[in-house]
């Protein structure tokens, strides 16, 4: 087995770019990743590209060859689709390919174009990540599904809307210095509480925005980095993926995410680390309640205690384990097919020390990224460590 390094990362600014094509967004992220890595494009042996709703947003299927030419690479190119975990599964496969010795350099990431569609169509587009026959037809929207999970959580473990508002406020504060974030303004707990409802108990500031954006990572073998004098201090030491029943109603418990439990267990075991070793985390907070479920699955908070972690300051920038120093999906934005790659880009910069929020995790050695699809029927966890 070969050790795997993140040689370079690239992002577009996340936000409203309704006029920009998907191919332009991904090309921008990819070129930034190559520049950051100092790796020539002709060395890329595979492209693993994540995208969810390109057929709806751009009437464009078969996107992988298009993105290969946009990024200026000529190699086997494959699109991965696992709803909002599309880029996470694309990166996981890149790591596995390099670890297996099948390639030394893989370009991985994703893109989503969303704001060119009316909001109602985006709502419909996101909903199709749920079970069409037994959920979507019965009125389950993407926020509605997480609202069902939030109320189930409150019933099982306690908690209230104000706990969720603290998560929104924390993540907005973290996004302020992040030049790639969609929202770089603070939101108070009071403002979050007063915002209009989307699906009770979730209100506007509990929800991530609709976002255009792309992410790209240059993943290389340790040997390639050494042989080519590539500065790649961050290693991917563990990956894990989990799957659950698609429909919420079929889950063992509506307020738990066993797919993420499984992904975390596999990733931690591969890395040889424990939850207590985690210094910093980027988690899939498409809704505030999702951050609660994520940190419980990752073992950062015990079951039933994730709800108060932000309110008690355990996951804030100055807390024991800062969560979503990028701003998270909540404030940084959520171009769904790009998100899993962007989390690893943010975490890499946080660990390298060149992220605007790196000062909060100056001694961090172990980071974890949690990317979820739909209502966590799919989950991917990556463990990143400072290798040198």
């Amino acid at each position: 087995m070969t050790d795997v390094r993140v040689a370079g990362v690239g992002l577009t600014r996340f936000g409203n770019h309704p006029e920009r094509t998907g191919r332009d967004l991904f090309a921008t992220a990819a070129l930034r990743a190559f520049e950051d890595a100092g790796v020539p494009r002709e060395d890329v042996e595979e492209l693993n590209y994540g995208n969810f709703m390109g057929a709806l947003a751009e009437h464009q299927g078969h996107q992988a060859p298009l993105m290969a030419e946009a990024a200026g690479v000529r190699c086997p190119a494959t699109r991965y689709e696992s709803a909002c975990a599309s880029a996470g599964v694309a990166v996981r496969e890149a790591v596995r390919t390099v670890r297996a010795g099948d390639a030394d350099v893989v370009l991985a990431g994703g893109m989503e174009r969303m704001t060119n569609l009316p909001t109602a169509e985006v709502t419909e587009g996101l909903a199709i990540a749920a079970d069409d026959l037994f959920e979507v037809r019965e009125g389950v929207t993407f926020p509605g599904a997480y609202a069902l999970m939030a109320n189930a959580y409150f019933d099982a473990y306690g908690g209230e809307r104000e706990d969720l508002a603290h998560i929104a406020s924390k993540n907005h504060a973290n996004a302020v210095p992040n030049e790639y974030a969609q929202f770089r303004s603070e939101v108070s707990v009071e403002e979050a509480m007063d915002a209009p409802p989307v699906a009770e108990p979730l209100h506007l500031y509990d929800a991530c925005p609709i976002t255009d954006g792309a992410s790209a990572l240059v993943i290389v073998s340790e040997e390639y980095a050494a042989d080519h004098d590539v500065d790649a201090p961050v290693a991917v030491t563990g990956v894990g993926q989990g799957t659950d029943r698609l429909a919420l109603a079929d889950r063992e418990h509506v307020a738990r995410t066993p797919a993420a439990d499984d992904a975390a267990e596999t990733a931690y075991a591969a890395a040889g680390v424990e939850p207590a070793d985690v210094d910093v985390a980027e988690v899939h907070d498409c809704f505030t309640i999702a951050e609660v479920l994520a940190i419980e699955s990752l073992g950062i908070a015990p079951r039933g205690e994730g709800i108060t972690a932000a309110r008690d300051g355990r996951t804030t920038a100055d807390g024991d384990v800062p969560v979503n120093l990028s701003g998270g999906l909540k404030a940084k934005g959520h171009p769904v097919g790009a998100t899993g790659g962007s989390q690893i880009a943010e975490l890499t910069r946080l660990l390298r020390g060149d992220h605007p929020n790196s000062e909060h995790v100056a001694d961090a050695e172990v980071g974890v990224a949690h990317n979820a699809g739909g209502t966590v029927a799919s989950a991917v966890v990556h463990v990143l460590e400072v290798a040198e």
Partner: protein
Amino acid sequence: MSDDTADGGSVPATNAGYDEWLDAVADGEGYALVCPDGHGSLPPRRVCPECGSTELSREPLAATGTVETQSVVHVPSPRFAEDAPYVTAIADFGPVRVTGVVRGIDPEPDAIEAGDELEASVGTRETDGERIVVFRPTDEA
């Protein structure tokens, strides 16, 4: 039984297994597919998703379901544009849980809560007339 669902041409495509199940729920004869170990699931299904058994037989849903969780949805998808705000719920009907829209209550956060009893039937969306699973409180139904 997909031929039976073509009333008024409102069903442009059929989904064998699902349409038949919805017809049964409409007739008050809703069922789950249950394996010998008692795991329930909804059709169409050839394999028990819990244990992999291929011996699936029909068992009736419980007469009433118990609310597990619910939400008042204010921002709908286009298919529910005229229905919002509405209450969506997951209710336990014995062998399976079922997801549906709750009618016969005000769409308010405390109108129903976990533990309440609901009956399942089939109604239509206000927006486009498509059939959906509808729950009603047992004292209303």
